[in-house]
Structure formats: structure tokens, C-alpha cells
């Protein structure tokens, strides 16, 4: 008999378990559900940016043949919102509209043409109010408040000082300051928002399928706006075409779909267009940053003092959390001893941003890393060296805001990019209009305190073992393309030593799978991965005990080899199927549970209000070197090569990790050089794939990925975040490379050719002197 070994799944390149469904076209996304008799929903949206609603006249629309329901803000007076402290948004506007495109009414009709005709029959009477499209205008004296409870349109002001900043600045040999502006950007995930809701009046029951990253939060908000018992709602997340934070909170699309389905007493499919998806927004807010950094001659940072102002759109959404992350997450990358932060989250008459990939810290990190680079140039210190100079004295390090760093692979990341990019040989010798830049970033592996605190564990996973010998993983963790189902399967398979093909996975169906908070803040691998390991370990214990009973052995003497259980080499062992039969004897189908909870030490600081935001069990680290060329005639930037190193703790699936890092670099590149929304009197003028300009395949630079494994002590097999950190590092690495190439330092994002040309023109002499 050949030696039997348990199958290994961790650390091995595994293609996605749901890949075959995706390439065959069989994978069903929300808009692919079209049961017979299904109605089509279409939304009437506000044509103005700020107005009092006088009347929404839907009488004619209701009479149109084929129309089954028309609803307005009268349908529900229950507001929704992700944060319990900031729920002021209605699925359909009531009393006021606050941004252009805000939903005002919704039609359910037999087909899309009829629905559109009905929309055209709706008469909207309103009285316009002054509208504010910039943070500055909205915060000015004498403005009209968008919301009565938010004077001067400030959603949240954050103000903290940790350490002695004034002393730090006066102790510094140099203090350098700069202002930065980062344009608002959108996720532009592939799948536009969609939902399908099936209302059963006799049972008073509703089933909602939606493109969401957070089915559980959808469930809560559906119950709230529908005023229905939570148990009478079933939320299912079908395949989802990407997220990146655009559906990390309940969207009006989903709620409206449910409301109109109930009104029509039927099934309604509501798929919004790309333009409406841009309007639904929840991207990264436009951010103005003023920052000063004090340093010693040797590059040691003595203090950081900065202000961030975010144009927060018409409703809070995640806004309070975003402005807190912009402060809290300055810590944990470098050793900082004094930081003062003022943050303003401002309400404006534009669509509400949300929690985009690299939530809250991306723009601040860009400013910080760009400024650090400028300091290095001024002090004639190598840009990598100045970063090394300020590394944490860790791991096992506690930041000023009480973040605990238990694994810290940033030094290795810097070593890797330095070596692979041949930094020392090439930096400063690139020739005209070509340059190298470096930057770092970090991000959390799941927020340690959830937005909705219930006292339940952070993650729960069920494993169902049945007579057929198959194991079904039941998890609420929403697979949205990031590969969470594959990761979960790998974790379970590894613990049980079985091949992944033994497993099937069912995700995110509130009547089948255990509750999960959702796919956001890079929590899934860390939390759900750990819960899966726990569940599989529990199942393994049951199987070993069953095998021991059957083999008449002590469980401690039974060895699990995956497909084979033995009680020492002398005995004939049991096959997995035999063990399953033994385990089910007298008890039937087994479902075991695994949990994960965060440690209280990771719950953030109480030193300032909102200090829980930024607390995480682990932080991932990235260093990146970007090589660019700049066209002297047109000021076009070309990214020639990227070296991206990320400390992911442990790469559970190197294939997926590479994909996440490359995708992050890629999305960062869009924000850095081409993406940004624009509004004209509140009308979005970049709300299409053409005008918004995500990079296309030809802009795809060669990206060398360096996976650094610091093995986090609490991570699943040591793993941490893999899908956000590298985006954060890219943006400043790019602008630093541009500065190296042309001697001009862009401060505003995106660095489009017209902005860069202007800078180059102003600095012609400077540019020419750079070699």
C-alpha cells in the first residue's frame, strides 16, 4: 500500500472554485434572474441638485396600461444608512431632494418600454434651493443646511492630537508642508447595481436577491424600510460582479426594488444603468489635504500635522468612518511620535461617496508619501532609506492610537523592491523624462469592531457532513469575485487533509447560511478563514472520535490522513467514507460550527471619539517602486514597470494573491493618472465608461509581484489582508516617479496630461536641468 498523505491546499496556486460557472456564462448575477411574469422597475430621478419637493404627481403614470405600481417617498418614512448614528437617507426622497439623480419615484411595469413611458408621465413639482458642489461652498457662512441636524453642513469634525506636535515641529530641523487635492473616484465595478424582489402577500414574505457585498446589512435595512419582521425576509446574494466598496452598505436600488415589489404585489427586477450606477456612487470622496511633516536632518520624523476635508455628498453613508480612518490609519506604517489631525466631513449636493477600496487612508497616504519623498529629495537622503529610518520598532509594537502590530513585513517589502527594481543602480540615472519612485502603504485585515455591534462572534461558518461523504461549507461570506469561496474551501480542505473536490460551498442565503457581516474592510480571509479553520477542526475531532470508536482505539492514537484514518501502522485503518458512516451512526447528518472573534486589545483607542475605527487584528504592508516615462510633447505618463511587494502574512493561494495585488496596482493607476468624476451644476458629466476613463488593457504595465510572508500569529495559517494595501502604495509611488522623471511634483490627482503640461510649462527650466 502506497503511503497515504493528507492533501494540501494552502500555499498552493488554486484556480477559483467558481471559475467554471463564470467562463461558461452559467453564473447568475442579480439581473440574470427573469422569472415568468417578472415586472421591470425603473426609477424617476431628481433633475435638480437641491430642492423642496412640492408634489410628485404619479396619477397619470399609474393609469398607463401595463403599469403595476408607482411609488414615491410616501411609501416609507423609515430612513436607512449603514451607521446607526447616521441614518437620514430615504430610499425615495421625502420633503427634499439633495443631489441630482436622487431617486424620487419608481415604476413597476410589464416591460422596460412601458416603464419608461410611465416615468415620462410623472410630474415633479419642486422649489429649488441653493446647491453646494464643493466642500468650501457648503461650509461657508450663511449657507442653507442640507440637513436640519447638521449645521453648516458638517457631517463630522474630527480633531485629535496624540503626542506633542508643537514640540515635535519645533524640534525638527526641517518642516515641509504642501496642499493636495484628490479627485472623487468611483469603483466602476463591472456589474451595474441590480436587485430582484419577490413579494408573497399571502405569506407576508419577501425574497430579495441583490448585487451586494453586505447581505446582512441589506437584511437589516430591508426590515427597517419595509417595516417587516426580519424573519419574514430572505436575502440571497447571487454572483456579484465586483465591489471594491461600492456596495458595502445598503443601496437605495435594493430597498426601492423591495418596496415596489410589495406595492405591485409581485416580482420586480430593478437593474440600473451604468450612469445610474455612477450616480448611486459610494466611491472615494474628493479630498483636500494640507499636511506638514517635521524631520530631523537624518530623516527621522518628529511630528505630523494635517487637515483633511472630504466632500461627502448629500448623505452620510460611511462618511463618519471615512473621515476617522483618514486620521487613525496614519499610524501603524511608520514610527510616529506626534500627530495632530483635523478632519471635516462635509455635506454637499453631490451623490454620496462610500467606502472605496483603501477606505479612508488612500488619499492621506498619498499626501504623506509624496511629502516624505519631497523631504528626502531636499535632505538628499535616498527615498528608500528615509522610509527605513522611520520603520516601526516592531513587530509587537503599539501605536500612539493603541493599534497593536503583531506582524510587520514592511522592511522585507522595501528590501524586495529595492533589489528587484535595481533601485540603487538605476535611481537618478534614468535619463530625461524617465523616473523611479517608491512609496509604502498598509491596511487593516478587517475592522475589529463591526458597525453593528451585537455581541455575536465576528464570523461563523457551518460545515455539513452527510451520508454521501461530501462536505458542504455554509457561509454568509459574500463571494464577490475576490475568491472568498475558494479561500474558505482551501482552509477547510487543509485542516481535514481532503482534496478540495470533496467540498461544495453555499454562500450568502439568509435562510441557509450563518449570518456574516459581509465582504468589506478586508475582513473575510482573516475572520471567515479563521472561523472555517475552527469549524473544520471541530469536524475533524468528531471524525477522529468516530474512527476511534470503530477501530476500538483511543482518539489520541488516531491519525487523520485525509482520505484515510489510522490508529497506528499495525492496524487496518478506515477510509474517509467509512469514518463518515461511523460518525453518522445514531446521529444522522452532522453540521458543525466554527467561530472567530477579535481580541479586545484590537478594538482601538479610547483616546479620542471614534478611536475604534482603525483597530484591527492585523495589518498588511506594501512597498512599491514604479517606473514611468513622460512624453515631453504631450505630458502623457506611461507606467513602464511596477515592482509591488506586499506582506500578506501568508499567501493562502498565491494565484489569487497575485491577482489581488495586480488588480490593486491597476486600480490605483486609474486614480493616479486618469480617473475622476466631474460635475456641472450637480450633473455628473463623467458618468459613463467612456468619459470616466478607467485604464484599458494597453495601459497595463508589467507588474512584478513580491509576496512577503510575515506569518501573522493570529491570522488563518498566518494570513492577512491582500486586496487593498497595494492600491494605496501605488499612487504616491507614481507621483514620486513623475517627480523623478521631470523634476516637477504633481500634487493634484489625477495627474492628467493637461495638469502635468501646465506644471511642466511653469517649470521648463527645472525640467530641463533634471537628468
Amino acid at each position, binding site marked *: 500500500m502506497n503511503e497515504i498523505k493528507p492533501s494540501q491546499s494552502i500555499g498552493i496556486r488554486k484556480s*477559483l472554485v*467558481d*471559475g*467554471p*460557472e*463564470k*467562463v*461558461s*456564462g452559467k453564473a*447568475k448575477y442579480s439581473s*440574470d434572474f*427573469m422569472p415568468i411574469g417578472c415586472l421591470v422597475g425603473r426609477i424617476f430621478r431628481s433633475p435638480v441638485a437641491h430642492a423642496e419637493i412640492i408634489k410628485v404627481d404619479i396619477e397619470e403614470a399609474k393609469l398607463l396600461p401595463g403599469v403595476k405600481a408607482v411609488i414615491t417617498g410616501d411609501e416609507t418614512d423609515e430612513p436607512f444608512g449603514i451607521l446607526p448614528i447616521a441614518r437620514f437617507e430615504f430610499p425615495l426622497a421625502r420633503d427634499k431632494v439633495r443631489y441630482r439623480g436622487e431617486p424620487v419615484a419608481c415604476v413597476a411595469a410589464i416591460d*422596460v*418600454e412601458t416603464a419608461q413611458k410611465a416615468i415620462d408621465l410623472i410630474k415633479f413639482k419642486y422649489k429649488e434651493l441653493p446647491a453646494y458642489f464643493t466642500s468650501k461652498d457648503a461650509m461657508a457662512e450663511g449657507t442653507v443646511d442640507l440637513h436640519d441636524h447638521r449645521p453648516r453642513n458638517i457631517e463630522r469634525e474630527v480633531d485629535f492630537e496624540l503626542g506633542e506636535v508643537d514640540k515635535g515641529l519645533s524640534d525638527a530641523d526641517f518642516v515641509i508642508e504642501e496642499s493636495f487635492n484628490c479627485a472623487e473616484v468611483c*469603483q466602476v465595478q*463591472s*456589474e451595474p447595481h441590480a436587485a430582484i424582489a419577490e413579494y408573497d402577500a399571502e405569506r407576508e414574505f419577501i425574497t430579495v436577491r441583490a448585487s451586494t457585498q453586505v447581505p446582512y446589512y441589506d437584511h437589516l435595512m430591508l426590515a427597517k424600510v419595509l417595516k417587516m419582521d426580519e424573519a419574514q425576509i430572505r436575502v440571497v446574494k447571487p*454572483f*456579484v*460582479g*465586483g*465591489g*471594491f466598496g461600492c456596495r458595502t452598505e445598503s443601496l437605495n436600488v435594493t430597498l426601492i426594488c423591495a418596496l415596489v415589489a410589495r406595492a405591485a404585489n409581485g416580482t420586480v427586477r430593478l437593474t440600473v*444603468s*451604468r*450612469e445610474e450606477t455612477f450616480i448611486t456612487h459610494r466611491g472615494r470622496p474628493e479630498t483636500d489635504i494640507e499636511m506638514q511633516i517635521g524631520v530631523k536632518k537624518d530623516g527621522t520624523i518628529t511630528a505630523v500635522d494635517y487637515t483633511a476635508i472630504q466632500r461627502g455628498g448629500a448623505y452620510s453613508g460611511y462618511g463618519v468612518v471615512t473621515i476617522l480612518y483618514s486620521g487613525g490609519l496614519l499610524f501603524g506604517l511608520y514610527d510616529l511620535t506626534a500627530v495632530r489631525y483635523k478632519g471635516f466631513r462635509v455635506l454637499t449636493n453631490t451623490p454620496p461617496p462610500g467606502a472605496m477600496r483603501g477606505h479612508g487612508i488612500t488619499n492621506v497616504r498619498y499626501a504623506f508619501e509624496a511629502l516624505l519623498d519631497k523631504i528626502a529629495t531636499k535632505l538628499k537622503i535616498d527615498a528608500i532609506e528615509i522610509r527605513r529610518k522611520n520603520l516601526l520598532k516592531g513587530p509587537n509594537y503599539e501605536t500612539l492610537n493603541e493599534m497593536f502590530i503583531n506582524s510587520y513585513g514592511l522592511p522585507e517589502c522595501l528590501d524586495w523592491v529595492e533589489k528587484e527594481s535595481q533601485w540603487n543602480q538605476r535611481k537618478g540615472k534614468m535619463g530625461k523624462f524617465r523616473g523611479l519612485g517608491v512609496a509604502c502603504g498598509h491596511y487593516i485585515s478587517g475592522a475589529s469592531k463591526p458597525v453593528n455591534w451585537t455581541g455575536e462572534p465576528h464570523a461563523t461558518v457551518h460545515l455539513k457532513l452527510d451520508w454521501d461523504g461530501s462536505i458542504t461549507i455554509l457561509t454568509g461570506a459574500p463571494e*464577490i*469575485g475576490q475568491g472568498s469561496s475558494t479561500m474558505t474551501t482551501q482552509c477547510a480542505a487543509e485542516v481535514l487533509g481532503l482534496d478540495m473536490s470533496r467540498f461544495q460551498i453555499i454562500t450568502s442565503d439568509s435562510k441557509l447560511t450563518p449570518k456574516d457581516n459581509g465582504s468589506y474592510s478586508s475582513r473575510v480571509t482573516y475572520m471567515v478563514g479563521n472561523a472555517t479553520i475552527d469549524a473544520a477542526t471541530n469536524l475533524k475531532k468528531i471524525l477522529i472520535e468516530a474512527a476511534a470508536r470503530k477501530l476500538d482505539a483511543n482518539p489520541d492514537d488516531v491519525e487523520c490522513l485525509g482520505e484515510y484514518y489510522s490508529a497506528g501502522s499495525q492496524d487496518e485503518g478506515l477510509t474517509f467514507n467509512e469514518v463518515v458512516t461511523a460518525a453518522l451512526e445514531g446521529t444522522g447528518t452532522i453540521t458543525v460550527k466554527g467561530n472567530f472573534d477579535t481580541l479586545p486589545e484590537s478594538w482601538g483607542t479610547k483616546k479620542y471619539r471614534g478611536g475604534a475605527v482603525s483597530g484591527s487584528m492585523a495589518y498588511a504592508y506594501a512597498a512599491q517602486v514604479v517606473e514611468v*516615462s513622460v*512624453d*515631453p*510633447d*504631450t*505630458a*502623457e505618463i506611461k507606467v513602464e514597470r511596477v515592482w509591488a511587494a506586499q506582506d500578506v502574512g501568508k499567501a493562502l493561494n498565491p*494565484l489569487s494573491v*497575485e*491577482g489581488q495585488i*495586480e*488588480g490593486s*496596482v*491597476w486600480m490605483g493607476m486609474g486614480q493616479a493618472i*486618469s480617473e475622476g468624476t466631474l460635475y456641472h451644476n450637480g450633473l455628473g458629466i*463623467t458618468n*459613463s*465608461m*467612456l468619459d470616466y*476613463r*478607467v*485604464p*484599458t*488593457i*494597453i*495601459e*497595463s504595465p508589467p*507588474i512584478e509581484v513580491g509576496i512577503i510572508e510575515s506569518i501573522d500569529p493570529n491570522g488563518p495559517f498566518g494570513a492577512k489582508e491582500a486586496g487593498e494595501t497595494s492600491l494605496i502604495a501605488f499612487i504616491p509611488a507614481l507621483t514620486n516617479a513623475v517627480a523623478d522623471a521631470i523634476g516637477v511634483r504633481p500634487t493634484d490627482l489625477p495627474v*492628467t*496630461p*493637461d495638469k502635468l*503640461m501646465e506644471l511642466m510649462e511653469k517649470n521648463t527650466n527645472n525640467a530641463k536641468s533634471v537628468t
Partner: protein
Amino acid sequence: MTIQFYLNGELRREDAVSPTTTVLDYLRVSAGKTGTKEGCAEGDCGACTIVVVRKNGDDEPLYEAVNSCLLILPQLDGANVVTVEGLARDGHFDPVQTAMVESDGTQCGFCTPGFIMALFALRQGNEKITDGTIHDALAGNLCRCTGYRPIVQAAHQACQDATKDLYGELSPLIPGEGYEHNHQKFFAPQNLSQLAEMRTDYPKAMILAGGTDLGLLFSKDRDPLEAIIYTSSVAELGEIEETKDYLEIGAAVTYTRILPYFERLYPSFATLITRIGSRQIRNVGTIGGNIGTASPIGDTLPCLIALDAMLTLYSKTGSRELPLEDFFIEYRKTDLKPGEFIKSIRIPKLKNKQKFRAYKISKRYDQDISSVIGAYRIEIDGLRVKDIRIAFGGMAEIPKRAVACEGAILDKEWVEDTALKAGLAVTTDFKPLSDHRASKDYRLCVAANLFIRLYRDLTDAEDLMEVVAA
């Protein structure tokens, strides 16, 4: 009247569908083929890509990727359509599908069917597979998850050899001459006189060529137009004639069909053509349509003006010729008279010493509206510039000649200083506007700098930076 076509090898006949139904809606809603996705409904993202197989003159199958969101159902009459559901055979994935799984070329999977169809068309096209051809074939497919590297890898793995394919074997169907449903009329005239007749009889009917611009009326606005005249089946409009002096292109000839001619006769123009939209767009879009739309930033227009192209306009009462530069009157207004349509475009061939260059400046390389397009036909005799025609797009409300710039070059020595001086004359010729594509200053600055690029380009090709290869 019936629309008939093959869908994944099965014959379909439809006679109760609105003619303005998009192919995408038809596939998803009527045919239940939901593998084809709607990502933008504007032809920009490629999630709705399907493949249309047609036979070339030698009866060989050509596989063309198209955006199903911009096509309306009657345009499929007689076609042979393949969707992602049609690729797997006998329980086995097509190699493209397998490669996309293995390389992790699919993450969220929503754009994946579109990529797979574009790759399928690429492989069946027997092209040499290089990074360049892969980029070209996939420029119209946006992925937001992967950063594209794994998809390029999948393409290298799966597209090397065309496989013999059942769809290529199907015998072509004969398309009809029109379709009508609930007072909506779709005319597919077969020849010039029929077209002229219909143009007079239905003055309000929309003339539809490829539909890459007008298709938005159906996909987004849901406009149930009453009459559409489709030009693709008009035999004369599909003709290409090459003589020793000129190339004459029928107005309904697609970019894809004309590209090989341009590659030979005006290579710089050909490079620019490959940056128009994407393959999906170029497989249906036409130069005639680009002219008819008369956009100030239509990519081909300054090129054709610089090349001194001549239009033939046709109506029931006869035909007339008009230099293209006189065709554009003001913003989106042309000299087209009632009942008239564009029949063909005649482009003189470059004479011995004439050279042609075109530069497109846009925020991204592919799939973008130009900020500025500069096009130059120049004849240098010894050192002296004997003849020059320059036209710009994006600099005025219509595509326009740069007369002052021409004056600064004509009869001058072709030295760097001349190029610099021509650049200075840009402000005399143009007063561009600022918009979200580019600022006024940027447009002026780049238009001036392009003369330096032209100089370097014509003088020392070796010195050309890769990034400036327009």
C-alpha cells in the same frame, strides 16, 4: 416578414419582436442567454461581446466580435451568431474558457463572457498571437479586477491555433429586405436606387450604418423609432475601389474592412484607425458614419481633410461631389441636402514624396474621445516644403484646416525652426474650448508641440519615443 439567423448553430426565426430591440436584450430576455452581460449599454465595456461569423469572398468564415448592446435585432438578419453559451462542446470547455479559469483571468466574472468571446474571435481569426494583437483584440473589453495580466496569459495559452469550428461550416442565410412590427419599420435596401427612393419617401427615417453612435438611442433612451433605413445591405455602399490615383470607399464599408488598405497606403492613418473604439466597434462602425455624424472630434475627419478626400453625395435626383473640408458647416451641421446621403469617400493616393502623419491625443490610448487630432500631408522636395495640408480635430467646432500653420511651412526649409514657427501659428488658426477632455491651454500647447513631433518623426525616425507612437 421574418428575421432569421443562427444562434449557436440553431436557426431562429423572429417575427413578433420590435425592430428596435437590441440584440443584447433579445439574447437575455427573449432567448434566455443571460451569459451575455450588460455592463454599460454604450459599447464601451465589452461585457456584451458576441461573435458574428460571416463568409468572406473566398467563402472562408470570418469571426467578428461585436457589441450586442449597440445592435438591433434586424441587423442580425441572415447572420450567424455565437454567444458564450455556444462555446463548450460535448461537455468540454473551449480552450479559451479553460485558460481563463487556469490563469485566474476571471475574478468577479461579470466581464468574463465578453472577454471569452473576444478571445474566441481572435483565435479563430488566424492572427499571429502577440501582446500587440492581444491588446488590439481586447481593447474594447474592460476588466476592473485583474489588471489584465492573467487575461493576456490566457490569450497566449489558448489562442495560438484556430480550431475547426462548426459555426464556420454553416451555410449563409439570405437576408431579407426589411422588417415591420407594430408600425415600426426597418428597411434594408439592397441597392443605391432603392436607398435613394426610401430616403425621399421617409425623410424622417433614421439612416443606420454600424450603429455605434446611434445605437445608444435604443440601448439607453429606449426610443421606439418609427422608421430606420439600414445601409449595410446596399451593394454599392459596400464597395471598395482602388485605382492608381485614389482609393474610393463606399460609405457602409467598416473600419475593419478598410484597415488593410490603409495599412498599405496610409500607415499612420491605419494606426489611428486601430485606436478608434475597439475591434467590436470597428467591426460594425463605418467611415461614412463617422463623416455623417460630423462630430468635431470624429477621429477620421481631420485625416481625410488633410488627405484632400472628396465625397460623393447621392440622392434620387443624382449625385454631386464635394471636398470633405467643405462638408462641415458648423457644429454637427453638414451640407447634406434633404433626400441626400453619403455614397462614398475618395482619397487620393500619396504621390512620390508625399508623406502622411496623424497624431491622436487622448487621455487613454484606446477607447477614448480625442482631445486633439493633428493630421498632416506634406511633400518635401530636398529641403523645401513643396506642398502641405494640415487639419485638426478637437480645436474648433468642426474639423478644420490649419491655414496659418500651413502658411508657416509652405515653401520654407524643413528645419526645426520651421516646425516651431508653425506651432506658433496654431493660435492664429484656432480658439479651442476647455472641457472635461482637455483645457484650452493644453489643446493649444499640444497642437503646437505636435509640429515638433512631426519634425522629429519625419527627420529621425530612430529618435521616436515609444510613448509618442500615435
